[in-house]
């Protein structure tokens, strides 16, 4: 789209974030086409600020934005807030790596055919019910400010997700299979791969037994380690929760020991994938932020406002789910960094424990919880029988200190049909991952 000319109001800071987004959503349930839709929307988010106090608006009317900004300026609440202008460097950049590979240029019928080809794997009697989904979204954004910023960027996410329930009665098992990429050309996934996942699910449904609740050694897969890092520590690294509580600066002092020496956690908006955010929604560049390095707190995630409040640098983590919302501090691609052990060495160190291969959901505050999907007993250093675990949980800081092994290869996973939720903004695409991570003691129930 063409960026409209803006007559900026005087006496206030102002910025406008334009957005043009297209999405495709296809859903097939139990073999029947349930929803096939393509959607396009254009809008803008307007902000004006005086004395650190903001008035903002989301609009689909892109005419005479200057007048809209002037009207908005009259609605700025009285008071004194945090003035972030010193942290809002007015960059001028264009980074649109997906402009010539837009998913919305591919006919809907082609996407439908590709999904249905994969779903031929669902024709097996053990499956009780299933749904298959294709999603793609392309989002073009332009951030312009009264200080002269003009940052144009785009992002894209393409994926397929299949949810299924196999088995009967108490031997029922529900799981999902997902593939994601940022272009259609790079999207993997085949009926054979889905079929292999279904084989595992059938075995799990038939053989998995409940576990006895109690503490145990646990190894997390890269995907599960990623959600652990995201939930247990990532959200606590978002600096907006520290605003208004000076004691937090002492409790979360950079340089404090927060985990075992093998633990390092990184957030990096520059990595391609569902967390790719080369420029954030305040026009600031992505950075690789080491939240934890060798068990020591080394950084946190910022918007311009939180960076100003805490006297730290911006990190490119001010993100908004769409033009309807203001940018707030969010993660991008967050992962546990690789260690030095091999995966085999990690498992060899477990005489009796559990391997959490996949999960249904995770959440966390001072305690965190992961609800596993596929989980296995580890006996004498080897993966043994499948087990049914409702949740694994722990106190965040105790658990971070109980990590005693990290493998040497990182895998990053995209979010395809879901994403990260914070306050009213859900789902925001993020990525998470890590290596295999061993924790000497977690509560298993």
């Amino acid at each position: 789209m063409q960026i409209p000319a803006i007559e900026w109001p005087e006496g206030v800071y102002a910025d406008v974030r334009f957005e043009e987004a297209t999405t495709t959503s296809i859903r097939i349930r139990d073999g029947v086409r349930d929803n096939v839709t393509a959607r396009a929307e254009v809008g803008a988010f307007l902000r004006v600020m005086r004395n650190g106090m903001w008035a903002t608006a989301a609009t689909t009317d892109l005419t005479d934005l200057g007048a809209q900004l002037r009207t908005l300026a009259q609605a700025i609440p009285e008071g004194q807030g945090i003035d972030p202008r010193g942290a809002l460097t007015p960059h001028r950049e264009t980074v649109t790596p997906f402009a010539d590979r837009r998913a919305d240029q591919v006919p809907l019928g082609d996407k439908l055919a590709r999904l249905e080809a994969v779903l031929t794997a669902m024709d097996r009697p053990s499956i009780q019910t299933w749904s298959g989904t294709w999603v793609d979204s392309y989002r073009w954004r332009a951030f312009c400010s009264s200080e002269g910023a003009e940052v144009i960027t785009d992002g894209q996410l393409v994926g397929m997700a299949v949810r299924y329930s196999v088995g009967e009665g108490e031997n029922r098992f529900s799981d999902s299979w997902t593939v994601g990429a940022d272009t259609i050309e790079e999207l993997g996934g085949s009926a054979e791969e889905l079929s292999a996942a279904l084989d595992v699910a059938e075995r799990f449904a038939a053989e998995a037994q409940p576990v006895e609740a109690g503490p145990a050694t646990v190894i997390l897969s890269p995907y599960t380690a990623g959600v652990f890092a995201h939930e247990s520590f990532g959200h606590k690294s978002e600096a907006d929760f520290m605003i208004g509580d000076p004691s937090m600066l002492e409790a979360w002092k950079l340089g404090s020991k927060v985990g075992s020496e093998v633990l390092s956690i990184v957030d990096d908006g520059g990595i391609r994938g569902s967390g790719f955010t080369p420029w954030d929604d305040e026009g600031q560049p992505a950075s690789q932020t080491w939240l934890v390095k060798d068990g020591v707190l080394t950084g946190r995630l910022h918007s311009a406002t939180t960076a100003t409040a805490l006297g730290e640098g911006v990190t490119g983590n001010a993100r908004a789910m769409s033009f309807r919302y203001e940018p707030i501090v969010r993660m991008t691609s967050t992962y546990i960094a690789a260690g030095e052990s091999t995966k085999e060495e990690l498992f060899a160190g477990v005489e009796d424990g559990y391997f959490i291969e996949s999960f249904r959901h995770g959440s966390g505050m001072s305690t965190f919880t992961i609800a596993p999907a596929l989980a296995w007993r580890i006996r004498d250093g080897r993966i043994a029988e499948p087990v049914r675990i409702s949740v694994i949980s722990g106190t965040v800081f105790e658990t971070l200190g109980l990590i005693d092994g990290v493998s040497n290869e990182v895998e990053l996973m995209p979010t395809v049909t879901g994403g990260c939720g914070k306050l009213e903004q859900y789902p925001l695409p993020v990525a998470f991952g890590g290596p295999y991570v061993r924790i000497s003691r977690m509560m298993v129930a």
Partner: protein
Amino acid sequence: MGDGMVREVLAFRQKKVTVGLADSRVVSVRSNDELETVVRMYSDGLVGLASAVGPHDRDALERQARAALVHGVPFAPGPVRDRQLTHAHPGDTHDAASLVRATTELLDVLRGRYPDFVFSHQVTWSSDHLSLTNDVGLDLQWSRATTYVVLLVKQKGSPNILDTLLVVDGPSFDGDAAIAQADAFLPAFRAGLAPMPAGRKRVVFEGLGPLQGRLQSDLTARSLSTGASVFAGREVSLHPDFRLLDSRDASRVRTCPFDLFGTVRQTPELVLLGPDGVQGVADRREAEVLGVPDTGNGWGKVHELPRPVVGELRIPGTGGLSPLLDDESILVCLAMGADCSDAGDYALPVQLAYTLDAEGRPVQRLPPITLTGNLFDVFGDDWVGATETKARPGIQESHVVTHMTVA
């Protein structure tokens, strides 16, 4: 239309004013005003759909919806015909200045009474209007104005992102209800930690809270008919006093009396679980496919075709909380990450719970705990009861009491 097609138009207009809070003060105000328009074309047992946000060319949308019929999405029952209804849930009207003023007054009180806590997040006024019309006599209109106070509360010095929530939801800005909630809970939060409980306890929830996830997913007609539901293929024996309702009483829960396919709900409450067994929800399309009643539960994103979704779950009760308590009852306030296995086994990590006095008032908070139980026991042999009185001022939920075990 002359070609045998039926055109249906769904329009959803939402205006919102949102006051943003940080550090117990107003820091921003946001205005949203959005119109989303969806055109559905029905023809020969199929449906095609197109949507637009904001200003749009209606003819172009109709052409897109007509073209979308090529994707072959079946819709055997066709559109709802000859039904008219207009229903409104009126409420306050706010602009930015009035909502900022009301919020500022609330925060002044909370800061004064609770200087050791930080209040953040937002207060939102929302005006919604939903219109669903078609060429064959459907004309449904619904509107609602609501003010939501959602305050994240964090004790200064706490390592948590948030410690508790104050939530008020109603037709008017009700600052008094938010203050009453703070007065009920924050002194108990300050009172320090109670000893870690152990064993089987009487547990009190505000509404169904974290127990409802599995109920929502497993009480659809499809999950029951395919055997995917935890309730499928088994004799469900619950407590004789227990009933789980999908509440669609428009006067009570301020919900829309029709679903997004245009089915007007005929009964104010649908019994999903009770002495007569299990009932799953369905929408117009699902009802036709599965041969079950259309319960008017077609919901979802406006720009997609609806699918069956369990609505407002409610357990009817009587009286107040006090008669349902024993000396060691626990009130669960904040629980995240609950899961329920296919065998019905719950694991429920609780971030914030309180001990209660004999009147049901919070006394002291507990350390984080994990509760376990089985769905069929929680609503069966372990069931205690539900209240008629509201759990807090300014919310719709009542108390629900059962037994669970501290793991």
